[in-house]
């Protein structure tokens, strides 16, 4: 199993897939900021005055992290950012399911409701993120020369 996970082609694939998914997710949210704001509000978890801060910044973090993953820049760090986001999403969806809310996920803009399926999808991405944090992925990546390594 350890050798399978260490396979550089697998790591590259996970990195690219995760990157593409998050770029797409971020772009969808940006195309309808007001709708995304409403989706966040529907979860009834955040204080109302903070919602728009997240609605404005989160999609861009997704796009930037996704893009950097694809380029192979600071893969571990961006994977960590994405993994933390996924953790928050999974918890939020879980809480909402327990409360019996029938709301939109807001994951890829408007169109799909929350459900066990969402949690499973996010969990797969979460696992991919963890693998990338531990194993990194240097195949076909842009090298950043930093003096403090």
């Amino acid at each position, binding site marked *: 199993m350890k050798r399978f996970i260490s396979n550089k082609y697998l790591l590259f694939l996970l990195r690219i897939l995760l990157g593409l998914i998050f770029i797409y997710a971020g772009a969808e949210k940006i195309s309808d900021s007001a709708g995304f704001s409403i989706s966040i509000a529907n979860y009834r978890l955040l204080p*109302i005055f903070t919602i728009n801060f997240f609605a*404005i*910044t989160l999609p*861009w*973090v997704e*796009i930037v*992290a996704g893009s950097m993953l694809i380029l192979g820049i600071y893969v571990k760090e961006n994977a960590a*950012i994405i993994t933390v986001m996924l953790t928050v999403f999974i918890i939020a969806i879980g809480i909402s399911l327990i409360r019996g809310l029938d709301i939109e996920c807001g994951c890829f803009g408007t169109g799909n409701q929350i459900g066990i399926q969402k949690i499973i999808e996010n969990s797969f991405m979460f696992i991919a993120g963890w693998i990338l944090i531990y194993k990194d992925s240097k195949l076909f990546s842009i090298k950043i020369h930093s003096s403090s390594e």
Partner: protein
Amino acid sequence: MILNYRNIFLIIAISSLIGFTYNFLNPEGIPLIKEERILQFEDEDIQHQESAISDLTDSNKIEDNEHQNNNDSEIEIDLPFSEPVAIKLPRAYELYKKGAKFIDARTKEEFAEGHINNSINIPFYESEKYESVLSTLNKNKTVITYCSGEDCDLSIMLSDELFEKGFKRIYIFYGGWIDWLKAGYPIESLNK
């Protein structure tokens, strides 16, 4: 596990900056502080006023029997609202008896399972597809949106959308389908 936390912070900070800038420049940008949407309930006084007025016009009609109007059977004073107004079951039923149009904001499937008698379906999440239905409605007449009940926001969101489209007399039936069903008021279902 060694992560460059400084870089993590920078990535998030710069992304956020880009986000705020984009939002500022975007004509469809959203406000930094989201405003709470407070539901405005109809004043009890207004309810009595409107009932009193329509009672008056009813009695006028009985005297004017020779001059028959082919239009509406009701002469209502149709003042526009400043925003959608929430109402509860008794008022909703009263308006139902007067022939107001009910709009179900829930999904097609939920509507098919059961809806208020004579209501139409405009699912909030697919409202773009129902533009043609909307255009058949008279924007000056009273419409009432509803969804499942107190925990459902679809009726509120749909009412805001309709209000922006020019419907100025919108009620939000706060208790919704659940209250209507409990009271045993007229319903219909598309399922056999």
